[in-house]
């Protein structure tokens, strides 16, 4: 019973605090760039405004265009139930292992790309093609990083992996260093962060993620944006679960929950600070340099796998 409650709590927390995390990241970025931030709560105001606006459908679009925002949002909410954020061994955890989880992210991406191509506008199609270019290269890197973790714990279930890593406490694993570096690069690429894509761009020619949303408005746009914010939180949560798992306890040990609830915001805040720093320090890559970036990520993932076999840890 408590496990189901925890599960529900985790999904709701992720869904409703995702705009706050994205807002915090935006505010930190603004401060680091000597701009005045709009405040951490700006994303909630934006979403509220969008939900109260009329949602227009572009002429000639099919049901895919209307369905995609719900499909994407649903996929990310389901993923929020699978990833061990508050505790391991949650009821939804056996639903998908890491491979299926990556597949779930891919499903959301396919919806987004198809919906963008459905509109038939050149910019949206361009964005869709670019998204697939990045995604096709990022996915193997992500899988390689995740497999390194699953080699260590001899399981592909994220819940089991995290439980195993949590038990090891402060053991040092060289292979996980490589995996962490690879995962961080994938995180930047998949969430339209700066070396690959600029989340705040208004220039259509350089857009990747934003270009796909150009035809959306009203509540559909709100769901898309909210989905993207949840996706960012999920990636950060996977990163925390794999590389800083201390404090994520089995669902049965409810007594340790207050400590988890205390540690988690700190970890997320640290992640936001690191992301903001990276986005301030790095310049956006040319699109044709992006494959190079992803190749490096893939390579790091593979080296992680190899060094596991060489060093045995």
């Amino acid at each position: 019973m408590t496990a189901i409650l925890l599960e529900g709590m985790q999904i709701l927390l992720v869904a409703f605090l995702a705009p706050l995390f994205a807002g915090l990241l935006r505010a930190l970025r603004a401060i680091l760039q000597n701009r005045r931030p709009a405040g951490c709560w700006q994303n909630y105001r934006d979403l509220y405004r969008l939900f109260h606006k009329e949602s227009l459908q572009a002429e000639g679009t099919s049901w895919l265009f209307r369905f995609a925002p719900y499909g994407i949002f649903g996929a990310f909410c389901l993923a929020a139930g699978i990833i061990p954020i508050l505790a391991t061994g949650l009821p939804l955890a056996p639903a998908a292992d890491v491979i299926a989880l990556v597949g779930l992210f891919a499903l959301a991406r396919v919806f987004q790309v198809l919906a963008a191509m459905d509109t038939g506008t050149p910019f949206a199609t361009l964005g869709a093609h670019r998204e697939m270019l990045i995604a096709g290269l990022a996915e193997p890197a992500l899988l390689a990083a995740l497999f390194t973790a699953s080699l260590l714990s001899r399981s592909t279930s994220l819940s089991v992996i995290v439980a195993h890593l949590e038990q090891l406490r402060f053991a040092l694993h060289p292979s996980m260093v490589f995996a962490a570096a690879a995962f961080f690069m994938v995180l930047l690429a998949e969430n339209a962060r700066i070396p690959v894509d600029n989340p705040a761009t208004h220039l259509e020619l350089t857009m990747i993620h934003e270009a796909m949303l150009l035809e959306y408005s009203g509540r559909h746009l709100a769901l898309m944006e909210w989905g993207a914010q949840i996706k960012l939180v999920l990636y950060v949560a996977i990163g925390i679960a794999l590389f800083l798992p201390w404090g994520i306890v089995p669902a049965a040990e409810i007594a340790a929950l207050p400590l988890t609830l205390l540690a988690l915001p700190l970890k997320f805040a640290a992640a936001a600070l690191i992301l903001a720093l990276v986005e301030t320090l790095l310049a956006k890559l040319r699109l044709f340099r992006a494959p190079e970036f992803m190749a490096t990520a893939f390579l790091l993932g593979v080296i992680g796998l190899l060094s596991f076999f060489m060093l045995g840890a």
Partner: protein
Amino acid sequence: MTITAQGLTWGIPLLRLLAALLLLLTFAMLAQRRLLTLIHLLAWQGMVLAAGTALVALLTGQSELWFSAALTLTLKAILIPTVLHRLLRRLQVRGDVEAVLNIPLTLLAGIALVIFAFFLAAPITALTGTVTRGMVGIALAAVLLAFLMMITRRKAISQVVGFLAIDNGLFFAATSATLGMPMVVELGVALDALIGFVILGIFFFQMRETFDSMDLQHLEQIREE
């Protein structure tokens, strides 16, 4: 050269982590386009090397290794990168590295080299019973990657960085895999690397005077008149 049980629990994993960092830095150098960042990465590699040597000194209690760690830190992490940095400014070399192969292909070749190195080191690993046996493969991989960097780069400065990275890899193999080596050998190697470096520095200036460029392609066209 015995290691205490306490050292085994945290010291060896830490040494493994440093080995992994060394490999990571070598790969970062292979992927890097900017000369300035390349030199910074070389400095970081020197730091990791010094930390590794200091750790081995701490674990085995060999006092001369402390000296060697200090020497590595001053020479490889501070002195050589600083001199390279100044050379770069004096020679006014443009920032980009000219690669013969494109970077993703070089990186893929790098993966193949790492697999080859690990495969090559596997029998050695199986033969020895020391706790640090995995390091041989990593150090060998680092050396081969530095070779690859020397092969795929055109500018003279990046070749020198590659040369120094080879030296770093060998040094790491010597200190970490075998837990230290005699002082005489170490001093000799350090001096060799330094002298090689000085000669190459002079060579840079000669080259610029003759060709007005740092591109090694020009050397292929030298003919005796």
